[in-house]
C-alpha cells in the first residue's frame, strides 16, 4: 500500500509497465518471505490496486483501453505464477538444505560409528547426534533384555524416568513388526498411531535392525509444543537406525572373532602343554618306578645303605611330582584368568624363613643364605602364591648353580616396594634373553637331560603380576643370575596401637 501511495503522484510520469514491474517485485519478495496464500493474495491485491489507481479511468475498476486490460491480466498471471514458483523454489531450497544437513549428520554419525568399539559407544553417539542434528528434544535407544522385554539402554536430552504402558506397548510393537510407530498428543491425551506417524505424532519409534534380526528401537521426542514429527524425520531416523544396526553387527562380530581367536590360542597352548606335561610328569614317575621295582626284587638283599638311598630317591621324586602338579594347576588358573590371589596382611620375613626351611631338599647341595632387614612393614599378598614364587625361584637357582655354591635370598625395602631377590652362581642369562626367560616353555640355559618344561618362571610372573608387583632377572657381577621380585607397600598398612602394660 505504501508503494502505491509513493508512486501515485508519479502516475503521469511512470508508465503502466513500470508500475507493474515494481508491484511484481513486491509480490516476489512477499513470496520469498511468506507462504503461498499470502503471496497469491498479494498478487490479487496488487492487481486490484493497479486497476484502481494506475489504469485509466483512475479510481475505478473499469478499464478503458483494451491494451491496458491485457497488460493487467498478464500482470496477474505472471504475478501468480512467479509468486508460486518462488515459493516452491524456496521450499525446495529449504528442503535441500535440510537434506544436506541430514546427510552431514549422517556422515558424522557414520564416522563416529566406524570408530565405535563397543555397543555403548554406538548408543552414545546415536543418542547424542539425533537431538543435535534432527531437532529432537531427546533421543533414547531401547534394547531387549534377557527376558525379551525392551529396556532403556541409553538416552540423552530430557528423559522421563520410565516408560508408560502405552510407550512400552508401541515400542514392543515396533520391535516385533519392524515398522515405524508414533505416539501423539491430541487434546492433552496420549494418542497412539500405529501407522507411520501422522502429523500429530510427537514421539517417533524407529526399529533398528532387519526383519529377521531386530536389535532395538530408537525413540525420539520433539520438544513440547514445538512441532510435529515429519516424514523427513522418519526418513532421517531410518537412515540413522540402519547405520547403527550395521555398526552394532560389526561390534558383535568383532567380539565373536576375538573370542574365537582366544579359544584357538588356548587350544594350541593346551596341546603344547599336554605334550610337555606328559614328559615332565613321567620323569620323576620313572625314577619312582625304577627305584621301587628294584627294592621289590627278591633275588637278593639290599644293603641298608643302598636301600636307604633308593627310598630317599623315591621320596625326593614324589616331592618333585607334587611341585610340578602345583605349578601346572597355577598355570592353568593363570591361563584361564581365574587366578585371584587371596590377599591378606602377611610378614614377608616370616614367609621367607618358612620357605627356606621347607626348601632344604629342593635346594639340594646348595646352602641357602638369607639376609633380612629388621622391621619390614607388613605387606598384602597371598601367602601360598608368593611362597610358590619363592620355591620356584630357589628350585630354578638350584638347577643351574654349580654344586656347593650358595643361593642368596635377600629382602630389602626399595622405594614404595619390598624387593626379594634370589641369586645364584650359575651360568647367568644370555644377553637379550632377560625378558624371554619368563615366557612359557622357554628353556634358554638348558642342557640336555635337565628336567623342567620351563613353566616355573612364567608362573612366577603371573603370580607376582597378579599382586601388582614386578619380577625380572639381572646378571650378576662375578657370574650368575639374580631374580628379583617386588611387592607393593600399602601406605595404609595397619598399625596397631598396642596396650600399655597392665602390671
Amino acid at each position, binding site marked *: 500500500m505504501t508503494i502505491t501511495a509513493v508512486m501515485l503522484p508519479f502516475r503521469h510520469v511512470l508508465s503502466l509497465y513500470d508500475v507493474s514491474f515494481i508491484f511484481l517485485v513486491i509480490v516476489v519478495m512477499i513470496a520469498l518471505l511468506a507462504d503461498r496464500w499470502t503471496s497469491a493474495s498479494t498478487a490479487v491485491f496488487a492487481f486490484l490496486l493497479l486497476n484502481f489507481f494506475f489504469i485509466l479511468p483512475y479510481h475505478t475498476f473499469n478499464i478503458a483501453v483494451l491494451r491496458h486490460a491485457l497488460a493487467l491480466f498478464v500482470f496477474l498471471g505472471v504475478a501468480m505464477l512467479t509468486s508460486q514458483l518462488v515459493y516452491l523454489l524456496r521450499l525446495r531450497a529449504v528442503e535441500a538444505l535440510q537434506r544436506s544437513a541430514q546427510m552431514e549428520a549422517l556422515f558424522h554419525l557414520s564416522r563416529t560409528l566406524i570408530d565405535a568399539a563397543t555397543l555403548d559407544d554406538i548408543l552414545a553417539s546415536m543418542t547424542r547426534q539425533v537431538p543435535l542434528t534432527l531437532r529432537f528434544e531427546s533421543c533414547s535407544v531401547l534394547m531387549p533384555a534377557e527376558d525379551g522385554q525392551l529396556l532403556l539402554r541409553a538416552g540423552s536430552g530430557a528423559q522421563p524416568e520410565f516408560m508408560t504402558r502405552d510407550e512400552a506397548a508401541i515400542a514392543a510393537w515396533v520391535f516385533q513388526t519392524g515398522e515405524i510407530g508414533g505416539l501423539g498428543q491430541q487434546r492433552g491425551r496420549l494418542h497412539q498411531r500405529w501407522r507411520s506417524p501422522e502429523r500429530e505424532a510427537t514421539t517417533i519409534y524407529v526399529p533398528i535392525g532387519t526383519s529377521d534380526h531386530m536389535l532395538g528401537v530408537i525413540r525420539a521426542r520433539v520438544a513440547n509444543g514445538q512441532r510435529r514429527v515429519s516424514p523427513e524425520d522418519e526418513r532421517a531416523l531410518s537412515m540413522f537406525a540402519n547405520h547403527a544396526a550395521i555398526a552394532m553387527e560389526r561390534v558383535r562380530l568383532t567380539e565373536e572373532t576375538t573370542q574365537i581367536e582366544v579359544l584357538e590360542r588356548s587350544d594350541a597352548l593346551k596341546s603344547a602343554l599336554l605334550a610337555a606335561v606328559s614328559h615332565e610328569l613321567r620323569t620323576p614317575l620313572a625314577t619312582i618306578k625304577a627305584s621301587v621295582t628294584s627294592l621289590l626284587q627278591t633275588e637278593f638283599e639290599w644293603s641298608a645303605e643302598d636301600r636307604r638311598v633308593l627310598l630317599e630317591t623315591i*621320596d625326593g621324586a*614324589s616331592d618333585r611330582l*607334587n611341585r610340578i602338579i*602345583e605349578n601346572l*594347576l597355577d598355570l592353568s588358573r593363570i591361563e584361564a584368568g581365574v587366578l585371584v590371589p*587371596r590377599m*591378606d*596382611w*602377611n*610378614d614377608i*620375613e*616370616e*614367609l621367607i*624363613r*618358612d620357605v627356606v626351611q621347607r626348601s632344604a631338599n629342593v635346594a639340594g647341595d646348595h646352602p641357602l643364605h638369607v639376609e633380612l632387614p629388621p622391621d619390614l612393614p*607388613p605387606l598384602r599378598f597371598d*601367602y*601360598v602364591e608368593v*611362597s610358590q614364587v619363592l620355591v620356584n625361584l630357589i628350585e630354578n637357582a638350584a638347577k643351574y648353580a654349580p654344586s656347593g655354591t650358595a643361593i642368596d635370598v635377600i629382602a630389602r625395602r626399595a622405594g614404595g616396594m619390598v624387593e626379594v631377590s634370589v641369586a645364584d652362581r650359575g651360568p647367568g642369562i644370555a644377553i637379550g634373553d632377560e625378558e624371554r626367560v619368563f615366557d612359557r616353555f622357554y628353556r634358554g640355559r638348558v642342557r640336555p637331560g635337565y628336567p623342567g618344561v620351563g613353566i616355573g618362571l612364567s608362573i612366577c610372573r603371573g603370580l607376582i603380576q597378579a599382586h601388582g608387583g614386578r619380577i625380572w632377572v639381572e646378571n650378576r657381577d662375578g657370574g650368575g643370575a639374580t631374580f628379583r621380585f617386588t611387592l607393593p607397600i600399602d601406605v595404609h*598398612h*595397619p598399625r*596397631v596401637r*598396642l*596396650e*600399655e*602394660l*597392665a*602390671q
Partner: protein
Amino acid sequence: MSARILIVEDEPHMRRAVGAGLKANGFNVHAVDRGEDALSSVPVFRPDVILLDLTLPGIDGHDVIRDLREWSMTPVIVLSAHGDERDKVQALDLGADDYLTKPFGMDELLARVRVALRHAAQLGTGPEPVFADGNLSVDFSRRVVTVGGTEVHLTPTEYDLLRVLVTNAGKVLTHHMLLGQVWGPASVSDTHYLRTYVNQLRRKIEADPAQPARIVTEPGIGYRYRRVDL
C-alpha cells in the same frame, strides 16, 4: 595298652598304607571308607584320635566333624588335598584339631598323632591350674607367666592370647577362633591385630623370636602352640 586310631578315608591304597604305617608303630587301627560309618563306629570303637579325609562319598568330612562335635571331643586330624585353604579353615572352625596336607610323610603323621593323643589325655584329666612346657610356665589362677624362672610382663590381651594358645596346645587355632576368643566375636576379621600381638608375644617368650619354636604360624590358616618338650 595301645592307643586306638580311627581312619576315615575312601581311597583304598591310602587307607592301606596309612593303616599299615600306624600299626607298625604299635597303634590299634580301625579303618572305614564313609562318613556315616565313621560316626557309627566312634561310640563302638572309641578311638583316641580320628584321621579324617575331607572329601568323602556320602556325607562330607565337614559334616562328619560338625556331627561328631555335638557329642564327642575326640581329637580329629583332617587329611586334605593341597589347595584351598578354606576347606581346612572351615574344618578347624567346626572343631577339627589339626590338619595334614596330602601328600604327607608318615613321620609327620605320627608326630601329629602323638600331639593329638597328648591333647586327648589332657581333656580326660581336665584343665590344670598351671601349664608347663620346657622353660615356659603359665599359672592360670594367678595370671603369672614365667620364662626360665623370670616373670614376663604381658598386657591383658597378650595374656589372653597366650592362654588360649596353651590351653589348646598342639591344636591348630584359626584366625577366626583366636580373634573370637581373645577379642570377641565382633573382631573376627582383623587379622592384623592378631599378627601384631602374636609377634609381640613371640618377642617376650620365644628364645629366638625370628625363628619361633612355640607359637607356630600355620600359613593362611592360623596359629598353633607347639610343645617344645614332648
